[in-house]
């Protein structure tokens, strides 16, 4: 019991220390270029935390990142590198807006359900292609998802212009397809925070439930760790490959729906793949694949992302600095072996001291 508690503590300690070290690294870099790191961080944090509006915005951003992060994580757990989260998010976004625009007058609960459902299906299908090819032909999911990213990008732009509208931006969806929650909007002084937050919390719980408490999750984990032994034990590796990619893509598609309906309420032509997809990878890594960890790391990313906007005007520091800090944080998460080593050394020194007394 004690040992598990201790390991849980160090599992918490590592991301926290990584975040600290990341900030310190950023500060050093800023000093090197003659910027004032204190001003910069103050601008970033105060910018967000001094205003309910920006807290709301940070959470809104975090909400979408939670979905993309979880999406990446489940594929990763099952042994796949789903680099196609961005494309799956995009097709989810398209599907949600398409459905919402097609049936503007349906009752809200129904319209939201089918819009979001369509997005999940779209994302799942998009990732499912890669999963199926992997399962039946052994085709590298890395290549297929990269290729499907670009395919999604071009198809999306085509659909917007040729199917949904003639311009670059679709109409706004009707009120019935809005995710906004009155009291939350009011509380955050009009931010775009939306019911995606609650969906995210539910999904975090469901993800945990699925992975640790269900037989299907057990299979996904087992197949991810040792497909041969899992096959021997009567699990279907093929089925689980496809299943985990479907869930992965479904989560990304759900993120697309929340982003589309919640953040924008419409869809517009994209010149590149949404960065939320790739940041989802970072979020998953910082969260160490744990759903609650992913949720909190999404919030950190949301704050950094929204707060970064304050740095140029209030501290004169280019907002690229925020990305550098994020990269540094992930670096330390990755190199946690060193952090662990130092922690262990400190611990053993302590116990040695105690023992000596």
């Amino acid at each position, binding site marked *: 019991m004690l040992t598990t508690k201790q390991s849980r503590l160090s599992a918490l300690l590592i991301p926290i220390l990584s975040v600290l070290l990341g900030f310190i690294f950023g500060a050093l870099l800023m000093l090197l270029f003659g910027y004032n790191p204190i001003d910069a961080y103050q601008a970033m944090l105060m910018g967000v935390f001094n205003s309910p509006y920006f807290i709301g915005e940070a959470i809104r951003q975090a909400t979408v990142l939670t979905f993309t992060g979880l999406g990446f994580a489940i594929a990763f757990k099952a042994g796949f590198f789903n680099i196609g989260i961005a494309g799956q998010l995009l097709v989810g976004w398209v599907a949600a807006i398409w459905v919402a625009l097609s049936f503007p007058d349906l009752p809200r609960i129904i319209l939201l359900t089918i819009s979001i459902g369509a997005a999940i299906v779209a994302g799942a299908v998009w990732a499912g292609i890669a999963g199926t090819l992997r399962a039946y032909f052994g085709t590298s999911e890395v290549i297929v998802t990269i290729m499907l990213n670009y395919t999604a990008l071009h198809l999306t732009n085509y659909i917007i212009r040729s199917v949904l509208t003639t311009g670059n931006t679709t109409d706004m969806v009707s009120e019935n397809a809005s995710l906004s929650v009155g009291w939350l909007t009011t509380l955050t002084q009009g931010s775009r925070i939306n019911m995606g937050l609650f969906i995210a919390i539910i999904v975090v719980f469901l993800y945990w439930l699925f992975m640790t408490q269900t037989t299907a999750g057990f299979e996904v984990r087992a197949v991810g760790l040792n497909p041969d032994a899992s096959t021997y034990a009567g699990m279907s590796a093929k089925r689980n490959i496809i299943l985990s990619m479907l869930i992965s893509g479904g989560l990304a598609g759900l993120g697309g729906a929340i982003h589309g309906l919640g953040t*924008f309420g419409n869809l517009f032509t994209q010149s590149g793949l949404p960065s939320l997809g790739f940041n989802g990878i970072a979020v998953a890594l910082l969260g160490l694949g744990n759903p609650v960890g992913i949720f909190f790391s999404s919030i950190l990313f949301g704050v950094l992302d929204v707060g970064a906007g304050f740095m140029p005007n209030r501290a004169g520091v280019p907002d690229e600095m925020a990305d550098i800090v994020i990269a540094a944080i992930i670096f330390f998460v990755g190199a946690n072996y060193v952090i662990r080593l130092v922690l262990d050394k400190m611990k053993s020194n302590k116990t040695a001291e105690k023992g000596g007394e």
Partner: protein
Amino acid sequence: ACSGEDASDSSSEDTSTEDTGGETSESTDFSVAMVTDEGGVDDRSFNQSAWEGIEQWGKDNNLDEGTGYAYYQSDDSSDFVPNFNQALADGYDIIYGIGYLLLDSVNQVADQNPDQHFGIVDDISDRDNVVSLTFKDHQAAFLAGVAAAETTETGKVGFIGGIKGQVIDRFQTGFEAGVAHADDSVEVDVQYAESFNDAGIGQQIAAGMFSNGADIIYHAAGAVGNGVFTEARNRMESNGDDQLWVIGVDRDQEEEGNYDGGNLTLTSTLKEVGNAVVESTTQAIDEGFPGGETIAYGLEKGGVELVRGNISDDVWSSVEEARESVINGDIEVPEFTYSE
């Protein structure tokens, strides 16, 4: 500000700021901010042009950056609305959204803040507290078409668009109309890169167009255009006998056209977003905010322009002629071909 020189140089001799500078130098309590689209403030396109205009206006009025004038940079489309709100919190009198991508965001914050004044560039908002500044890009493109048709030796010219859509369609329509106006035997080869980023695609399309006989390409495709210039430069450097030209967009792209042995930027169409923003600001100070209005900046208002560049004297006089006709209404330049 009809001259198509490098924007940062031209600011010192900018005529449009002179119009306003003398009268408004006292009104230091007025402040202006802009929110960029994803291109950022130094995109060497309309964001940069808008910012240079605002910056100059601020300096002329002895304002400080950060209180009297400011920009808010968007790295992602989801930054638009928060950036408006940041500008709102910082208390600017007018906040401009630069580029059609910001329309929905402007409308949204305009609804939430009915007493605040906003501007949108390149699109039209129907809100009462928003002034819409549009540009008759098709007029400048028309002149580019005239210049191209009159300059081509092969009777074939090309147009490369970025991502298909209304805005770029305006360029294409104007250009095609200009070509037809000058010489309807000249063919226009139209292609879209479906990207604003991948210069490699620009280079491939340009290679195809040149190989297929076009000798002038007009691009309206952002960074994809870099590849168009590269292909033209490569061809000119390996075989300088057959003159090829590129027509730049949004700002004077003369610099991009330098090659061993000359310059191949025939001309560039300009979009003087800075002028328009300053003009509408001045109007707001002097006559009250033109909320709900749409101000279309065309050739006549110096909102769009074609630079002289490397256009020959003969051709330039045809261009001048065409410009007169457009301004005085003899020629009505079509805006859209988009119909499907």
